[in-house]
């Protein structure tokens, strides 16, 4: 469902390829033993290697390699058992070595693909060009001193996976879906926490426009796009900018542009002519990276069920619709929670309670599922109470609110507050009789054809029973007595 731009000369297609930098979830850096924990005080997690002291040498962290392979498998990609680390040379104060160790001609992961889910319920496949491992740079701080810049090397040398997509994405909506899906997959795999606010996941977006069916247009690379929302806004802005230039008779210059979130615009950073010559060459401090296919196979054995597989299984084994299934698989913890609730219970009812009630109230309170005061076991218990007619669905909502407040078990709340449903026909019949006796006018009107008044009688009975009367029994008795 390509998003088209209406220009003065007709419709334009937006063509997008993304480069996502994902920080590898791992204890220590790609080539040193320093910690990677986020939020430590500046320059407190810097080894001699990270600071590029004279004579220091990189040693590859095997765990990072494993995570990259795991990610490649999750992206249905070809794993290259031979890959090479190369040096990308440039000068900047937050790059202590004067080069970044990256992969260039021989990345660890080759072509793959992922499915993205679009809002209209359709599914599209986006090609993955490659994934490679590289070092992150440190951080330059320009706002700490009126005339000086400070450098924090904590991030210097942290492992990044650069995941490059094919230019298969058409428009902001698809880009957002791609980024969300990619993040979901990484989180399922446990290879990146996907936290864009902390910079654990960053995106560069390549945007070009063309008339549908034409050759690819000249692209601009947009940097510093650090949320799904920003990606959408940047694409909208940039594609319109390009269309305007072309329609005004101009042409697009290949360049790198920066997204300014405050002004909501992209602006030129450097032109193609100013682009660096990085002088890539194989890092002579590191041997080519080689491993056995059997090791890849072992890692494959430990792969969790991935979002798409899980979605299809939820639809098939639980009979859920696409929407419910998509919502439930959006986070691995959420899917696990649902499955605990649905275990041996009515799955649709479980999905309904998780999505509409629990996620709703959590969202309203600004809480994550991980902070939920109601455990999956407790929510399951509540559904059991409905299923065996101990309480009605309506009472259940009150019990649920109480559970959310207090964290107590549903059975205890029902017991404590005497909310147990009345199914004793005799007791309900007495109330029904009472209501009929008290409302002769309405009885007469109902009998003369005003069917809608039936609800009034049900409401009165429920009110008198404080909501505890079994609705089915109430219905039966009322129908019998009013006819």
């Amino acid at each position, binding site marked *: 469902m390509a998003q088209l731009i209406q220009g003065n000369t007709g419709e334009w297609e937006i063509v997008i390829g993304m480069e996502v930098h994902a920080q590898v979830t791992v204890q220590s850096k790609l080539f040193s033993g320093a910690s990677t924990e986020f939020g430590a005080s500046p320059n407190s997690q810097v080894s001699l290697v990270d600071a590029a002291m*004279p004579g220091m*040498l990189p040693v590859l962290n095997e765990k990072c390699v494993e995570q990259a392979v795991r990610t490649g498998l999750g992206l249905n990609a070809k794993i290259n058992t031979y890959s090479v680390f190369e040096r990308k040379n440039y000068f900047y*104060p937050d790059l202590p*070595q*004067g080069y970044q160790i990256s992969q260039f001609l021989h990345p660890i992961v080759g072509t793959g693909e992922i499915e993205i889910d679009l809002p209209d319920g359709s599914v599209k496949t986006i090609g993955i060009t490659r994934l490679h491992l590289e070092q992150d740079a440190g951080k330059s701080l320009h706002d700490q001193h009126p005339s000086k810049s400070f450098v924090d090397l904590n991030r210097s040398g942290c492992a990044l996976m650069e995941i490059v997509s094919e230019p298969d994405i058409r428009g902001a909506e698809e880009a957002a879906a791609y980024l969300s899906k990619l993040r979901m997959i990484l989180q399922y795999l446990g290879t990146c926490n996907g936290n864009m606010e902390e910079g654990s996941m960053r995106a560069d977006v390549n945007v070009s426009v063309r008339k549908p069916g034409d050759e690819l247009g000249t692209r601009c690379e947009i940097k510093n796009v650090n949320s799904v929302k920003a990606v959408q806004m940047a694409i909208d802005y940039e594609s319109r900018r390009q269309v305007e230039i072309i329609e005004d008779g101009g042409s697009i210059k290949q360049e790198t542009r920066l997204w300014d979130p405050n002004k909501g615009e992209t602006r030129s950073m450097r032109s193609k002519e100013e682009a660096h010559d990085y002088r890539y*060459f194989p890092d002579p401090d590191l*041997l080519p990276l080689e491993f056995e296919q059997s090791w890849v196979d072992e890692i494959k054995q430990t792969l969790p069920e991935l979002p798409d597989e899980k979605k299809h299984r939820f639809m098939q084994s639980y009979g859920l619709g696409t929407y419910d299934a998509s919502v439930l698989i959006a986070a691995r913890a959420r899917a696990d929670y649902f499955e605990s609730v649905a275990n041996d219970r009515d799955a649709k009812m479980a999905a309904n309670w998780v999505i509409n009630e629990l996620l709703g109230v959590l969202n309203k309170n600004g809480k994550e599922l991980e902070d939920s005061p109601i455990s999956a076991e407790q929510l399951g218990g509540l559904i059991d109470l409905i299923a065996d007619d101990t309480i009605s669905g309506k009472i259940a909502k009150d019990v649920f609110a109480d559970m959310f407040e207090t964290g107590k078990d549903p059975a205890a709340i029902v017991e404590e507050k005497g909310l147990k449903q009345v199914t004793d026909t005799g007791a309900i019949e007495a109330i029904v009789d009472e209501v009929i006796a008290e409302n002769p006018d309405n009885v007469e009107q109902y009998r003369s054809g005003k069917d809608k008044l039936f609800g009034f009688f049900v409401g009165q009975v429920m009110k008198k029973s404080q909501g505890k009367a079994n609705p089915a029994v109430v219905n039966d008795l009322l129908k019998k007595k009013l006819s």
Partner: protein
Amino acid sequence: MTELTHMTVAQALKGLENKDFSAVELTQAHIDAMANYRHLNAFIVETPDLAMDQAKASDERRAKGEAGALDGIPLAIKDLFCTKGVQTTASSKILEGFVPRYDSTVTARLFRDGAVMLGKTALDEFAMGSSNTTSYFGNVINPWKRSDGSNADLVPGGSSGGSSAALAARICMGATGTDTGGSIRQPASFCGITGIKPTYGRCSRWGVVAFASSLDQPGIFGRSVEDTAIMLKSMSGFDPKDSTSADRDVPDWAGQLGGDLKGMKIGIPKEYRMDGMPEEIEKLWQQGIAWAKESGAEIVDVSLPHTKYALPTYYIIAPAEASSNLARYDGVRYGLRVEGQDLTDTYESTRAEGFGDEVKRRIMIGTYVLSAGYYDAYYIKAQKVRRLILQDFEKAYEQCDALLTPTAPSAAFAIGENEDDPIKMYLNDVFTVPASLAGLPGMSVPAGLSADGLPLGLQIIGKAWDELTVLKVGQAIERAANFSALPEMVTKKAA
């Protein structure tokens, strides 16, 4: 006490064990020699106090029966090895005043075995040179003089020229070096001492200021083949901190020396017979071949057809790696910083002032050969030729166990000679560079004197990981040559 400075390491270890003298006495004698020969400018930093502390500790260990393999032996350390608490400069202004908080793996291992450090020796800046004239801290003077009475100061060779001069002048009993294209073997030849570069990966490069990572290899200068074998053992071995270091056992080389060369085949590569090579070098080579034969070796003519491409290949690969390795000297974190108008100006001013001409030349060559559009024609091609050079050696070793060649095409030259022509200077390494490109072990043994009375060395190149054969052949040459000449300034003092 002068005789204390004229022993081999093997003799000194015996003397210490027999209590003929103490480590303190041995060290003091060498500290005195260091002061006597200060005009040679072999040291950038002298560490006599540290040396005496280490010597005292050594005597205490020996008294308790806990002496290590090199306990109490005073060594000079090339100023390319980082030494904890002692300035390490690579002979460059850009690192002047830099004091590491860590010891290189090699020096840490030497200290672990009880070695005493007298100081840090000068080198060509960042080990780039064959004459020691590119050091920011001034030329090192070779203790040898020509016998023609000219009294010209000669170069000690390079890049490890401070180490070779110090050992030749009897200032130390052994000295570390590093060899990228001949930086141990050529100065050993120029100074009349023995020097070995082991197989690439034998000694850890961790903590050694990098010049060209795929070629750099620590090694050692000694007064005898046996001494180099003893010291090399202490320095060698797998280091998990260096991904290119080899996880291999380190043999007891010294314990296996002493035999003849019976059953061994020595290859003579015809391509090393170069046009315009001085007669005396050719003669010395023939003499070496005769000695090997006398010791029982069979002489085999072999061919290393790609030899002529070795120097050009080396002068693409080494500068390429250096241009990247030296990027870290940017004035941001340590060493020299020349404040500029802005960041770029600071970078440019720092590096313009911090690096000497030869270093700048190689950074420019290296940057050029890695640039877009030139990379394939230069760097990739050089890598292919490098593989062919390695294959040449592998083929040759199907016919023989080791190769015997001259170490350098000339004896030591005067300071200032060759300075105007970098290419002529680069030719110094013509015989040593091929083995460096192939990562093979090589050693230079003093074998005779030139017509001018200057020492000349012969080179032995071995198979990868077969330092033992190299040392055995070296020792056979050593025994036959019986090289006992000393620089005049040393014999005068001794008399």
